[in-house]
């Protein structure tokens, strides 16, 4: 499993870890019931704070991507189709927010944007 930390980017480090592990799980690099590195070992290997990795793991557990077994560690939770769909919906929403902002800055209105989406999705069909 690869994890890359960018100290200079604006994103908080725990968020970077959370996102990358989540993507590994969604994409299948990490399979169901695979063991994740311990919070401490991950922190030390990445040379970051233990509190940061704990936060990332807490988020992942809260969102249902991983589960903890007492005294054994954290493991990848079974893939939840609903969860994945929700994730993708969230991503689409965030893109829509960005598109809206850009549209406004270009002077496009809502209908213009819908036209562009229809064009794109029409092609796919």
């Amino acid at each position, binding site marked *: 499993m690869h994890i890359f930390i960018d100290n200079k980017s604006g994103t*908080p480090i725990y968020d970077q870890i959370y996102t990358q592990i989540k993507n590994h799980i969604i994409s299948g690099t990490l399979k169901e019931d695979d063991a994740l590195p311990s919070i*401490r070992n991950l922190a*030390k290997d990445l040379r970051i*704070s*233990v*509190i940061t990795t704990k936060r990332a793991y807490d988020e992942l557990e809260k969102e249902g991507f991983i589960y903890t077994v007492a005294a054994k560690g954290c493991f990848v939770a079974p893939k939840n189709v609903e969860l994945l769909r929700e994730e993708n919906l969230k991503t689409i929403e965030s893109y829509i927010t960005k598109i809206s902002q850009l549209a406004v800055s270009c002077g496009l209105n809502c209908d213009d944007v819908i036209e562009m989406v229809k064009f794109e999705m029409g092609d796919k069909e």
Partner: protein
Amino acid sequence: MSITNAIEVKNLTKSYKKGFMLDNISFTLPSGCIMGLIGENGAGKSTAIKLMLNMIKRNSGTVKILGRDNREDFELTKEDIGVVLDEVGISECLNAKEVGNIMKHTFKNWDEKVYAENLQKLSLSDNKKFKEFSKGMKMKLGIAVALSHNAKLLILDEATAGLDPVIRDEIMDMLCEFTREETHSVLISSHIVSDLEKVCDYIAFIHNGKMLICEEKDRLYETYGIVRCSAEQLNDIEPDAVIGKKISPYGAEAIVERSKIPSDWEIGAIDIEKLFVFMVKEGH
């Protein structure tokens, strides 16, 4: 019985006739964490550490190290602490091997094998006299000793000052490895912030004997941010959101509290060094 806090300092004060060296300092280092104590020269970092080691007398306050008050049987507690002061203080005529022999008969849990490994890791030769060691090598020997008696807590006072970046990186690596074990903790004081920024879990700022901040490093990144704009735009922000600012003919840069800034402003990530400098300059 597990110890939850490696160090607990409450209301520690040391004053001299001319004024306070340390004014009511309190902080806690939870077990398993690394805390960076940052402050300019003379801010009180070394005074705090000396008070913790009973090298000087306090005016008031309590210090608990590894769960025990440091005024009770402190020699027993010191078996579990590895200390490196900026004046390493090993006798000049000794060499690394002799130091090892002395320590073997001083510490109950001295581990010769680990000491030999540490000397090798830090490329310190057995036979060179301490007098002939460079500052960096003296520091490395101090650290080798501190890591060779199964200590649970490391206290380093300015242990990386005067060292080149490669050695500093090596030492930070060793500290990181040391705290892989969750019963191990580290308190390191320095005025070189960049060393501490990466590996620390907690950051504390001391300035003029006062504790400005003692916080999880991540929370600092979340609480504070940098805005870059024109001087006029800066005036639009409420003054108590601004921790410190720098104004040049081409614009202004300010460190702000993110929660007090309107959401449409673009706020960049801070670095700890800048936060400290701005805080000190603004007299906060």
